[in-house]
Protein backbone atom coordinates (compact mmCIF):
# COMPACT_ATOMS: atom_id res chain seq x y z
CA UNK A 1 0.00 0.00 0.00
CA UNK A 2 1.28 3.45 -0.88
CA UNK A 3 2.41 5.60 2.01
CA UNK A 4 1.37 9.18 1.34
CA UNK A 5 2.11 10.54 4.82
CA UNK A 6 5.80 11.14 5.23
CA UNK A 7 8.43 13.82 5.70
CA UNK A 8 11.70 13.93 3.83
CA UNK A 9 14.24 16.73 3.84
CA UNK A 10 17.27 16.96 1.60
CA UNK A 11 18.85 20.33 0.94
CA UNK A 12 21.94 19.64 -1.17
CA UNK A 13 22.09 19.94 -4.90
CA UNK A 14 24.13 16.98 -6.10
CA UNK A 15 26.41 17.48 -9.10
CA UNK A 16 28.23 14.40 -10.33
CA UNK A 17 30.37 13.60 -13.33
CA UNK A 18 32.70 15.36 -15.73
CA UNK A 19 33.42 19.06 -15.04
CA UNK A 20 31.61 18.83 -11.69
CA UNK A 21 34.44 20.67 -9.92
CA UNK A 22 34.33 23.46 -12.48
CA UNK A 23 30.67 24.04 -11.65
CA UNK A 24 31.51 25.14 -8.08
CA UNK A 25 31.89 28.86 -8.95
CA UNK A 26 28.44 28.76 -10.59
CA UNK A 27 26.98 27.08 -7.49
CA UNK A 28 28.62 29.71 -5.31
CA UNK A 29 27.29 32.50 -7.51
CA UNK A 30 23.78 31.04 -7.27
CA UNK A 31 24.17 31.31 -3.48
CA UNK A 32 25.43 34.89 -3.83
CA UNK A 33 28.97 33.95 -2.79
CA UNK A 34 32.21 34.69 -4.62
CA UNK A 35 35.10 34.00 -2.28
CA UNK A 36 35.15 30.61 -0.56
CA UNK A 37 37.46 29.33 2.14
CA UNK A 38 38.64 25.81 1.38
CA UNK A 39 38.90 23.45 4.34
CA UNK A 40 40.67 20.17 3.77
CA UNK A 41 42.97 17.59 5.36
CA UNK A 42 46.73 17.27 5.32
CA UNK A 43 46.44 13.94 3.55
CA UNK A 44 44.35 15.49 0.78
CA UNK A 45 46.84 18.29 0.12
CA UNK A 46 49.64 15.70 0.13
CA UNK A 47 47.75 13.88 -2.64
CA UNK A 48 47.44 17.11 -4.61
CA UNK A 49 43.67 17.43 -4.41
CA UNK A 50 44.00 21.11 -3.48
CA UNK A 51 45.85 21.77 -6.74
CA UNK A 52 43.08 20.06 -8.71
CA UNK A 53 40.55 22.31 -7.00
CA UNK A 54 42.63 25.45 -7.68
CA UNK A 55 42.83 24.51 -11.37
CA UNK A 56 39.05 24.07 -11.43
CA UNK A 57 38.63 27.69 -10.33
CA UNK A 58 40.61 29.03 -13.30
CA UNK A 59 38.76 31.68 -15.32
CA UNK A 60 35.96 31.67 -12.76
CA UNK A 61 36.48 35.13 -11.30
CA UNK A 62 36.31 33.55 -7.82
CA UNK A 63 39.46 33.86 -5.71
CA UNK A 64 40.00 31.30 -2.95
CA UNK A 65 40.22 32.95 0.46
CA UNK A 66 42.77 30.35 1.51
CA UNK A 67 43.25 26.61 1.88
CA UNK A 68 43.05 25.57 5.52
CA UNK A 69 44.58 22.10 5.53
CA UNK A 70 45.18 21.38 9.20
CA UNK A 71 42.59 18.61 9.61
CA UNK A 72 43.90 15.13 10.30
CA UNK A 73 41.66 12.41 11.73
CA UNK A 74 39.97 14.32 14.53
CA UNK A 75 37.45 17.16 14.41
CA UNK A 76 38.17 19.60 17.23
CA UNK A 77 36.73 22.94 18.29
CA UNK A 78 40.13 24.66 18.09
CA UNK A 79 40.43 23.75 14.39
CA UNK A 80 36.93 25.10 13.76
CA UNK A 81 37.86 28.35 15.51
CA UNK A 82 41.06 28.72 13.50
CA UNK A 83 39.13 28.15 10.27
CA UNK A 84 36.52 30.70 11.39
CA UNK A 85 39.20 33.30 12.08
CA UNK A 86 40.80 32.71 8.69
CA UNK A 87 37.34 33.01 7.11
CA UNK A 88 36.75 36.37 8.77
CA UNK A 89 40.26 37.73 8.14
CA UNK A 90 40.07 36.95 4.45
CA UNK A 91 36.54 38.26 4.00
CA UNK A 92 35.24 34.95 2.68
CA UNK A 93 31.54 34.34 2.10
CA UNK A 94 31.32 30.56 1.64
CA UNK A 95 33.01 27.34 2.72
CA UNK A 96 34.16 24.49 0.50
CA UNK A 97 35.13 21.27 2.29
CA UNK A 98 37.30 18.75 0.46
CA UNK A 99 37.29 15.38 2.23
CA UNK A 100 35.12 13.27 4.42
CA UNK A 101 34.47 12.76 8.13
CA UNK A 102 36.46 15.20 10.28
CA UNK A 103 37.00 17.66 7.40
CA UNK A 104 33.26 18.04 6.81
CA UNK A 105 32.63 18.25 10.57
CA UNK A 106 35.20 21.01 11.12
CA UNK A 107 33.95 22.90 8.06
CA UNK A 108 30.37 22.85 9.30
CA UNK A 109 31.41 23.78 12.82
CA UNK A 110 33.37 26.74 11.41
CA UNK A 111 30.32 27.65 9.35
CA UNK A 112 28.21 27.68 12.53
CA UNK A 113 30.70 30.05 14.18
CA UNK A 114 30.95 32.50 11.27
CA UNK A 115 27.25 32.44 10.42
CA UNK A 116 26.18 33.16 14.01
CA UNK A 117 29.14 35.46 14.61
CA UNK A 118 29.95 33.73 17.87
CA UNK A 119 32.91 32.03 19.50
CA UNK A 120 30.90 29.60 21.60
CA UNK A 121 30.30 26.51 19.54
CA UNK A 122 29.02 24.48 22.47
CA UNK A 123 25.95 26.68 22.88
CA UNK A 124 24.59 24.74 19.90
CA UNK A 125 25.35 21.40 21.56
CA UNK A 126 23.75 22.49 24.83
CA UNK A 127 20.18 22.90 23.70
CA UNK A 128 20.37 26.13 21.69
CA UNK A 129 20.12 24.85 18.12
CA UNK A 130 21.26 26.93 15.13
CA UNK A 131 18.52 29.42 14.40
CA UNK A 132 19.27 30.66 10.91
CA UNK A 133 20.61 29.57 7.57
CA UNK A 134 24.35 29.19 7.48
CA UNK A 135 26.78 30.58 4.89
CA UNK A 136 26.85 28.60 1.62
CA UNK A 137 28.62 25.31 2.21
CA UNK A 138 29.81 23.04 -0.57
CA UNK A 139 31.06 19.56 0.16
CA UNK A 140 33.39 17.61 -2.11
CA UNK A 141 33.70 13.98 -0.93
CA UNK A 142 37.26 12.73 -1.26
CA UNK A 143 38.99 9.54 -0.20
CA UNK A 144 37.44 8.04 3.00
CA UNK A 145 33.98 8.97 4.19
CA UNK A 146 32.13 8.23 7.41
CA UNK A 147 28.67 8.48 5.92
CA UNK A 148 27.48 11.60 7.76
CA UNK A 149 28.94 14.27 5.44
CA UNK A 150 25.87 14.49 3.24
CA UNK A 151 23.56 14.48 6.24
CA UNK A 152 22.69 16.84 9.05
CA UNK A 153 24.86 15.61 11.92
CA UNK A 154 28.31 16.77 12.98
CA UNK A 155 30.60 15.39 15.64
CA UNK A 156 33.06 17.86 17.15
CA UNK A 157 35.19 16.95 20.14
CA UNK A 158 33.11 13.78 20.45
CA UNK A 159 29.86 15.75 20.81
CA UNK A 160 27.10 15.37 18.30
CA UNK A 161 24.85 18.06 16.87
CA UNK A 162 21.95 17.47 14.51
CA UNK A 163 20.19 20.26 12.63
CA UNK A 164 18.60 20.70 9.23
CA UNK A 165 20.80 23.80 8.78
CA UNK A 166 23.87 21.57 8.69
CA UNK A 167 23.07 19.99 5.32
CA UNK A 168 25.51 21.07 2.61
CA UNK A 169 24.08 23.40 -0.04
CA UNK A 170 25.79 21.46 -2.80
CA UNK A 171 27.65 18.16 -3.02
CA UNK A 172 30.16 17.91 -5.84
CA UNK A 173 31.12 14.41 -6.93
CA UNK A 174 34.06 14.45 -9.28
CA UNK A 175 36.13 11.43 -10.25
CA UNK A 176 39.35 13.44 -9.83
CA UNK A 177 38.62 13.69 -6.12
CA UNK A 178 36.79 10.51 -5.11
CA UNK A 179 39.54 7.91 -5.58
CA UNK A 180 40.35 6.21 -2.27
CA UNK A 181 43.89 6.16 -0.90
CA UNK A 182 43.94 2.46 0.14
CA UNK A 183 41.80 -0.65 -0.14
CA UNK A 184 41.09 -0.51 3.57
CA UNK A 185 39.86 3.07 3.25
CA UNK A 186 37.64 2.10 0.31
CA UNK A 187 36.26 -0.86 2.30
CA UNK A 188 35.51 1.28 5.36
CA UNK A 189 33.71 3.90 3.30
CA UNK A 190 31.71 1.17 1.56
CA UNK A 191 30.71 -0.34 4.89
CA UNK A 192 29.41 2.95 6.29
CA UNK A 193 27.50 3.44 3.05
CA UNK A 194 25.92 -0.01 3.32
CA UNK A 195 25.05 0.58 6.97
CA UNK A 196 23.37 3.90 6.13
CA UNK A 197 21.38 2.25 3.37
CA UNK A 198 20.21 -0.69 5.48
CA UNK A 199 19.32 1.71 8.32
CA UNK A 200 17.03 3.56 5.93
CA UNK A 201 15.53 0.30 4.63
CA UNK A 202 14.86 -1.06 8.14
CA UNK A 203 13.49 2.19 9.53
CA UNK A 204 9.94 1.68 10.80
CA UNK A 205 8.60 4.82 9.11
CA UNK A 206 8.75 3.99 5.44
CA UNK A 207 8.74 6.83 2.99
CA UNK A 208 9.00 6.47 -0.77
CA UNK A 209 11.69 9.19 -1.00
CA UNK A 210 13.88 7.58 1.64
CA UNK A 211 13.47 4.18 0.02
CA UNK A 212 14.36 5.67 -3.37
CA UNK A 213 17.60 7.19 -2.05
CA UNK A 214 18.53 4.01 -0.15
CA UNK A 215 17.67 1.88 -3.17
CA UNK A 216 19.88 3.96 -5.46
CA UNK A 217 22.69 3.87 -2.89
CA UNK A 218 22.63 0.07 -2.56
CA UNK A 219 22.29 -0.26 -6.33
CA UNK A 220 25.46 1.79 -6.95
CA UNK A 221 27.31 -0.09 -4.21
CA UNK A 222 26.21 -3.51 -5.50
CA UNK A 223 27.51 -2.66 -8.97
CA UNK A 224 30.84 -1.16 -7.93
CA UNK A 225 31.80 -2.28 -4.42
CA UNK A 226 33.92 -5.27 -5.42
CA UNK A 227 35.84 -3.38 -8.10
CA UNK A 228 36.21 -0.25 -5.95
CA UNK A 229 37.87 -2.26 -3.18
CA UNK A 230 40.05 -4.24 -5.59
CA UNK A 231 41.21 -1.08 -7.36
CA UNK A 232 40.64 1.84 -4.95
CA UNK A 233 42.12 4.39 -7.36
CA UNK A 234 39.79 3.43 -10.21
CA UNK A 235 37.99 6.68 -10.97
CA UNK A 236 34.78 5.25 -12.36
CA UNK A 237 34.07 2.87 -9.49
CA UNK A 238 35.19 5.30 -6.79
CA UNK A 239 32.79 7.87 -8.23
CA UNK A 240 29.99 5.28 -8.16
CA UNK A 241 30.79 4.50 -4.52
CA UNK A 242 30.86 8.21 -3.67
CA UNK A 243 27.41 8.54 -5.26
CA UNK A 244 26.25 5.57 -3.20
CA UNK A 245 27.67 7.19 -0.05
CA UNK A 246 25.88 10.47 -0.64
CA UNK A 247 22.53 8.85 -1.42
CA UNK A 248 22.67 6.43 1.49
CA UNK A 249 23.80 9.28 3.75
CA UNK A 250 20.80 11.42 2.84
CA UNK A 251 18.46 8.43 3.29
CA UNK A 252 19.97 7.68 6.71
CA UNK A 253 19.71 11.34 7.75
CA UNK A 254 15.95 11.01 7.29
CA UNK A 255 15.72 7.74 9.26
CA UNK A 256 16.05 6.93 12.94
CA UNK A 257 19.64 6.01 13.85
CA UNK A 258 20.41 2.32 13.37
CA UNK A 259 21.63 0.15 16.23
CA UNK A 260 24.90 -0.69 14.46
CA UNK A 261 25.64 2.94 13.70
CA UNK A 262 25.12 4.08 17.30
CA UNK A 263 27.16 1.24 18.74
CA UNK A 264 29.95 1.64 16.17
CA UNK A 265 30.20 5.40 16.83
CA UNK A 266 30.48 4.90 20.58
CA UNK A 267 33.05 2.13 20.19
CA UNK A 268 35.04 4.33 17.79
CA UNK A 269 35.13 7.05 20.45
CA UNK A 270 36.21 4.64 23.17
CA UNK A 271 38.70 2.48 21.27
CA UNK A 272 39.85 4.72 18.42
CA UNK A 273 39.16 1.93 15.92
CA UNK A 274 37.37 3.10 12.75
CA UNK A 275 33.61 2.64 12.83
CA UNK A 276 33.66 0.73 9.53
CA UNK A 277 35.33 -2.17 11.36
CA UNK A 278 32.50 -2.39 13.88
CA UNK A 279 29.88 -2.08 11.17
CA UNK A 280 31.44 -5.07 9.42
CA UNK A 281 31.46 -7.09 12.65
CA UNK A 282 28.02 -6.22 14.04
CA UNK A 283 25.86 -5.98 10.90
CA UNK A 284 25.16 -9.75 10.40
CA UNK A 285 24.02 -10.23 14.00
CA UNK A 286 22.15 -6.92 14.02
CA UNK A 287 20.26 -7.81 10.83
CA UNK A 288 19.25 -11.17 12.29
CA UNK A 289 18.20 -9.48 15.53
CA UNK A 290 16.23 -6.76 13.73
CA UNK A 291 14.52 -9.37 11.56
CA UNK A 292 13.39 -11.20 14.70
CA UNK A 293 12.29 -8.00 16.40
CA UNK A 294 10.57 -6.00 13.67
CA UNK A 295 10.15 -8.54 10.91
CA UNK A 296 12.18 -8.95 7.72
CA UNK A 297 13.00 -5.93 5.55
CA UNK A 298 10.88 -5.39 2.45
CA UNK A 299 11.50 -6.80 -1.02
CA UNK A 300 13.31 -3.60 -1.96
CA UNK A 301 16.56 -4.73 -0.37
CA UNK A 302 16.75 -7.69 -2.77
CA UNK A 303 15.83 -5.55 -5.76
CA UNK A 304 18.55 -3.04 -4.86
CA UNK A 305 21.28 -5.51 -3.90
CA UNK A 306 20.59 -8.27 -6.40
CA UNK A 307 19.11 -6.44 -9.36
CA UNK A 308 15.98 -7.11 -11.39
CA UNK A 309 17.03 -10.53 -12.70
CA UNK A 310 17.63 -12.05 -9.25
CA UNK A 311 14.51 -10.34 -7.88
CA UNK A 312 12.31 -11.76 -10.64
CA UNK A 313 13.77 -15.24 -10.25
CA UNK A 314 13.19 -15.38 -6.48
CA UNK A 315 9.78 -16.55 -5.18
CA UNK A 316 7.89 -13.76 -3.41
CA UNK A 317 8.03 -15.36 0.06
CA UNK A 318 11.80 -15.80 -0.11
CA UNK A 319 12.62 -12.28 -1.27
CA UNK A 320 13.15 -10.62 2.16
CA UNK A 321 15.48 -13.40 3.33
CA UNK A 322 17.28 -13.51 0.00
CA UNK A 323 17.67 -9.72 0.19
CA UNK A 324 19.41 -10.02 3.56
CA UNK A 325 21.65 -12.78 2.17
CA UNK A 326 22.60 -10.71 -0.86
CA UNK A 327 23.32 -7.74 1.38
CA UNK A 328 25.57 -9.82 3.64
CA UNK A 329 27.32 -11.18 0.56
CA UNK A 330 28.07 -7.58 -0.42
CA UNK A 331 29.57 -6.96 3.02
CA UNK A 332 31.73 -10.05 2.55
CA UNK A 333 33.40 -8.32 -0.40
CA UNK A 334 35.40 -6.39 2.21
CA UNK A 335 36.98 -9.64 3.43
CA UNK A 336 40.71 -9.36 3.87
CA UNK A 337 40.61 -5.58 4.38
CA UNK A 338 38.63 -5.38 7.62
CA UNK A 339 38.79 -7.65 10.73
CA UNK A 340 35.79 -9.97 10.85
CA UNK A 341 35.56 -10.99 14.50
CA UNK A 342 35.20 -8.99 17.66
CA UNK A 343 37.76 -11.18 19.45
CA UNK A 344 40.46 -10.17 16.94
CA UNK A 345 40.17 -6.54 18.16
CA UNK A 346 41.00 -7.50 21.79
CA UNK A 347 38.55 -5.03 23.34
CA UNK A 348 37.96 -5.64 27.06
CA UNK A 349 34.37 -6.52 28.02
CA UNK A 350 33.98 -3.48 30.27
CA UNK A 351 34.68 -1.17 27.31
CA UNK A 352 32.04 -2.92 25.22
CA UNK A 353 29.55 -2.48 28.06
CA UNK A 354 30.51 1.18 28.42
CA UNK A 355 29.89 1.74 24.72
CA UNK A 356 26.46 0.07 25.03
CA UNK A 357 25.55 2.32 27.98
CA UNK A 358 26.71 5.44 26.13
CA UNK A 359 24.83 4.47 22.95
CA UNK A 360 21.67 3.61 24.92
CA UNK A 361 21.74 6.94 26.76
CA UNK A 362 21.69 8.99 23.54
CA UNK A 363 18.52 11.04 23.21
CA UNK A 364 17.94 10.24 19.56
CA UNK A 365 18.84 6.54 19.83
CA UNK A 366 15.77 4.26 19.87
CA UNK A 367 17.59 1.25 21.36
CA UNK A 368 18.43 0.40 24.96
CA UNK A 369 21.86 -0.62 26.33
CA UNK A 370 20.43 -4.16 26.68
CA UNK A 371 19.64 -4.23 22.96
CA UNK A 372 23.23 -3.26 22.18
CA UNK A 373 24.60 -5.86 24.59
CA UNK A 374 22.37 -8.49 22.99
CA UNK A 375 23.85 -7.68 19.57
CA UNK A 376 27.38 -7.94 20.97
CA UNK A 377 26.50 -11.33 22.49
CA UNK A 378 25.00 -12.55 19.23
CA UNK A 379 28.10 -11.35 17.38
CA UNK A 380 30.40 -13.21 19.76
CA UNK A 381 28.32 -16.36 19.20
CA UNK A 382 28.61 -15.87 15.44
CA UNK A 383 24.95 -14.93 15.00
CA UNK A 384 23.57 -13.93 11.61
CA UNK A 385 26.14 -16.03 9.73
Amino acid sequence: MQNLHYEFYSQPKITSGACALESIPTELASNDAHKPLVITGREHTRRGLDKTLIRAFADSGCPLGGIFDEIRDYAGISLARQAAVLFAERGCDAIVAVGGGPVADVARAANLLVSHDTQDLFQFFNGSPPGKRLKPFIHIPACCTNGSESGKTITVDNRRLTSNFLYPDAIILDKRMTAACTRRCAAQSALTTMDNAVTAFLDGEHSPMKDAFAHAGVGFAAASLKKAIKRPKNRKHSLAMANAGVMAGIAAANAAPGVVRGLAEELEKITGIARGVFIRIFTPAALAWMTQKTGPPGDDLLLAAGGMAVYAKTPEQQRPQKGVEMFLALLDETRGQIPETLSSLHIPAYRLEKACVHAGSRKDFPFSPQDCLEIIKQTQKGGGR
Partner: protein
Amino acid sequence: MKSISKSVNKTLNISRYPEIPPGTKLIKKGYVFVMLLIVGRAIEAASKVDQSVKKIFGDLPERFTFYLGVAPGGPYMVIGKDKQGNVKYLGWNLYGRKIDLGLDIKNLESAFKVFTFQESTAQAFAYDRFIVEGNLPQALAVVRVIDIVEIHLLPKVIARLAVKRYPKWSELSPVKKHLNRVRIYLKSFSPGLIKVIYRNL
Protein backbone atom coordinates in the same frame (compact mmCIF):
# COMPACT_ATOMS: atom_id res chain seq x y z
CA MET B 1 34.36 37.10 15.88
CA LYS B 2 36.87 39.76 16.93
CA SER B 3 37.13 38.22 20.39
CA ILE B 4 38.03 34.83 18.93
CA SER B 5 40.47 36.48 16.58
CA LYS B 6 42.53 37.82 19.46
CA SER B 7 42.94 34.47 21.18
CA VAL B 8 43.26 32.32 18.06
CA ASN B 9 45.55 34.68 16.15
CA LYS B 10 48.32 33.83 18.58
CA THR B 11 48.26 30.20 17.47
CA LEU B 12 47.30 30.70 13.83
CA ASN B 13 49.81 31.97 11.32
CA ILE B 14 47.45 33.37 8.70
CA SER B 15 50.20 33.93 6.16
CA ARG B 16 50.54 30.14 5.88
CA TYR B 17 47.19 30.09 4.06
CA PRO B 18 47.58 32.64 1.27
CA GLU B 19 44.72 33.92 -0.81
CA ILE B 20 44.71 32.26 -4.23
CA PRO B 21 43.58 34.30 -7.25
CA PRO B 22 41.96 32.28 -10.04
CA GLY B 23 44.34 31.32 -12.84
CA THR B 24 43.73 31.38 -16.58
CA LYS B 25 43.70 28.58 -19.13
CA LEU B 26 44.89 30.65 -22.06
CA ILE B 27 45.13 27.87 -24.67
CA LYS B 28 41.65 26.51 -23.97
CA LYS B 29 40.22 30.01 -23.83
CA GLY B 30 41.89 30.87 -27.13
CA TYR B 31 40.58 27.72 -28.77
CA VAL B 32 37.01 28.38 -27.62
CA PHE B 33 37.33 32.01 -28.81
CA VAL B 34 38.38 30.90 -32.30
CA MET B 35 35.63 28.27 -32.44
CA LEU B 36 33.00 30.83 -31.43
CA LEU B 37 34.30 33.19 -34.12
CA ILE B 38 34.09 30.46 -36.77
CA VAL B 39 30.66 29.23 -35.66
CA GLY B 40 29.39 32.82 -35.46
CA ARG B 41 30.49 33.63 -38.97
CA ALA B 42 29.16 30.28 -40.17
CA ILE B 43 25.73 31.00 -38.66
CA GLU B 44 25.65 34.29 -40.56
CA ALA B 45 26.60 32.47 -43.77
CA ALA B 46 24.20 29.57 -43.16
CA SER B 47 21.29 31.95 -42.69
CA LYS B 48 21.78 32.97 -46.32
CA VAL B 49 22.52 29.51 -47.69
CA ASP B 50 20.48 26.94 -45.74
CA GLN B 51 16.69 27.06 -45.96
CA SER B 52 16.04 25.53 -42.53
CA VAL B 53 18.36 28.02 -40.79
CA LYS B 54 16.72 30.83 -42.76
CA LYS B 55 13.30 29.62 -41.57
CA ILE B 56 14.34 29.36 -37.92
CA PHE B 57 15.71 32.91 -37.97
CA GLY B 58 12.61 34.04 -39.87
CA ASP B 59 10.45 32.90 -36.96
CA LEU B 60 12.49 34.88 -34.46
CA PRO B 61 11.42 38.47 -33.72
CA GLU B 62 12.81 41.52 -35.52
CA ARG B 63 16.13 42.92 -34.23
CA PHE B 64 16.57 39.75 -32.19
CA THR B 65 20.07 39.55 -30.69
CA PHE B 66 21.57 36.64 -28.81
CA TYR B 67 24.93 35.61 -27.48
CA LEU B 68 26.60 32.28 -26.83
CA GLY B 69 29.58 32.33 -24.52
CA VAL B 70 31.38 31.09 -21.46
CA ALA B 71 30.49 32.32 -17.98
CA PRO B 72 31.65 34.40 -16.24
CA GLY B 73 34.16 36.31 -18.38
CA GLY B 74 33.75 35.07 -21.92
CA PRO B 75 34.70 34.56 -24.73
CA TYR B 76 31.38 35.30 -26.42
CA MET B 77 29.86 35.42 -29.86
CA VAL B 78 27.03 37.87 -30.50
CA ILE B 79 24.59 37.38 -33.35
CA GLY B 80 21.74 39.66 -34.28
CA LYS B 81 18.98 40.16 -36.83
CA ASP B 82 18.69 43.58 -38.41
CA LYS B 83 15.52 45.38 -39.47
CA GLN B 84 15.56 43.69 -42.89
CA GLY B 85 15.83 40.25 -41.31
CA ASN B 86 19.49 39.74 -42.24
CA VAL B 87 21.45 37.73 -39.69
CA LYS B 88 24.82 39.24 -38.75
CA TYR B 89 27.72 38.07 -36.62
CA LEU B 90 28.32 41.11 -34.43
CA GLY B 91 31.57 40.05 -32.81
CA TRP B 92 32.60 39.14 -29.28
CA ASN B 93 31.81 42.30 -27.31
CA LEU B 94 28.64 42.29 -25.24
CA TYR B 95 29.00 45.86 -24.07
CA GLY B 96 26.45 48.35 -25.30
CA ARG B 97 24.26 45.74 -26.96
CA LYS B 98 20.62 45.01 -26.20
CA ILE B 99 20.61 41.24 -25.74
CA ASP B 100 17.34 39.31 -26.02
CA LEU B 101 18.74 35.88 -25.30
CA GLY B 102 21.89 34.84 -23.46
CA LEU B 103 23.34 31.34 -23.64
CA ASP B 104 26.15 30.93 -21.13
CA ILE B 105 28.12 27.73 -20.85
CA LYS B 106 28.79 27.41 -17.12
CA ASN B 107 32.56 27.12 -17.33
CA LEU B 108 35.46 26.97 -19.73
CA GLU B 109 35.99 23.21 -19.33
CA SER B 110 32.39 22.48 -20.33
CA ALA B 111 32.72 24.85 -23.30
CA PHE B 112 35.92 23.07 -24.29
CA LYS B 113 34.09 19.73 -24.16
CA VAL B 114 31.35 21.11 -26.42
CA PHE B 115 33.71 22.73 -28.92
CA THR B 116 36.06 19.74 -29.08
CA PHE B 117 32.96 17.64 -29.82
CA GLN B 118 33.41 15.37 -26.81
CA GLU B 119 29.81 16.29 -26.02
CA SER B 120 27.07 17.38 -28.36
CA THR B 121 25.28 20.66 -27.75
CA ALA B 122 22.07 18.79 -26.90
CA GLN B 123 23.95 16.52 -24.48
CA ALA B 124 25.54 19.56 -22.82
CA PHE B 125 22.05 21.05 -22.43
CA ALA B 126 20.88 17.80 -20.83
CA TYR B 127 23.89 17.78 -18.46
CA ASP B 128 22.88 21.26 -17.27
CA ARG B 129 25.98 22.93 -18.63
CA PHE B 130 24.08 25.93 -20.02
CA ILE B 131 22.56 28.93 -18.31
CA VAL B 132 19.80 30.44 -20.43
CA GLU B 133 18.76 34.03 -19.87
CA GLY B 134 15.67 34.63 -21.97
CA ASN B 135 13.05 32.67 -23.79
CA LEU B 136 13.68 28.90 -23.65
CA PRO B 137 12.00 28.01 -27.00
CA GLN B 138 14.21 30.65 -28.65
CA ALA B 139 17.26 29.09 -26.94
CA LEU B 140 16.33 25.69 -28.34
CA ALA B 141 15.90 27.23 -31.78
CA VAL B 142 19.45 28.59 -31.50
CA VAL B 143 20.70 25.14 -30.48
CA ARG B 144 19.02 23.70 -33.60
CA VAL B 145 20.77 26.34 -35.72
CA ILE B 146 24.14 25.46 -34.15
CA ASP B 147 23.49 21.76 -34.89
CA ILE B 148 22.73 22.51 -38.55
CA VAL B 149 25.81 24.72 -38.87
CA GLU B 150 28.00 22.02 -37.34
CA ILE B 151 26.64 19.51 -39.87
CA HIS B 152 27.70 21.86 -42.65
CA LEU B 153 31.06 22.83 -41.17
CA LEU B 154 32.38 19.50 -39.97
CA PRO B 155 33.15 16.20 -41.67
CA LYS B 156 30.57 13.51 -40.94
CA VAL B 157 32.83 11.54 -38.55
CA ILE B 158 33.19 14.54 -36.24
CA ALA B 159 29.76 16.07 -36.82
CA ARG B 160 28.09 12.85 -35.62
CA LEU B 161 29.68 13.46 -32.22
CA ALA B 162 28.66 17.10 -32.17
CA VAL B 163 24.98 16.90 -33.07
CA LYS B 164 21.95 15.17 -31.59
CA ARG B 165 21.14 13.21 -34.77
CA TYR B 166 22.99 13.31 -38.05
CA PRO B 167 20.46 13.73 -40.93
CA LYS B 168 19.90 10.85 -43.35
CA TRP B 169 20.53 11.13 -47.09
CA SER B 170 16.80 11.54 -47.65
CA GLU B 171 16.79 14.56 -45.35
CA LEU B 172 19.95 16.22 -46.62
CA SER B 173 21.39 15.08 -49.91
CA PRO B 174 25.22 14.85 -50.03
CA VAL B 175 25.38 17.12 -53.10
CA LYS B 176 23.39 19.83 -51.37
CA LYS B 177 25.38 19.38 -48.18
CA HIS B 178 28.77 19.71 -49.90
CA LEU B 179 27.59 22.61 -52.03
CA ASN B 180 26.29 24.42 -48.94
CA ARG B 181 29.52 23.59 -47.08
CA VAL B 182 31.64 25.28 -49.77
CA ARG B 183 29.35 28.31 -49.85
CA ILE B 184 29.33 28.62 -46.04
CA TYR B 185 33.13 28.36 -45.84
CA LEU B 186 33.57 30.94 -48.60
CA LYS B 187 31.12 33.35 -47.01
CA SER B 188 32.55 32.81 -43.50
CA PHE B 189 36.12 33.59 -44.46
CA SER B 190 35.31 36.43 -46.85
CA PRO B 191 36.83 39.90 -46.29
CA GLY B 192 33.80 40.59 -44.09
CA LEU B 193 35.56 38.59 -41.38
CA ILE B 194 38.41 41.11 -41.24
CA LYS B 195 35.86 43.93 -41.07
CA VAL B 196 34.14 42.32 -38.07
CA ILE B 197 37.43 41.68 -36.27
CA TYR B 198 38.53 45.27 -36.90
CA ARG B 199 35.19 46.61 -35.61
CA ASN B 200 35.48 44.57 -32.37
CA LEU B 201 39.07 45.48 -31.56
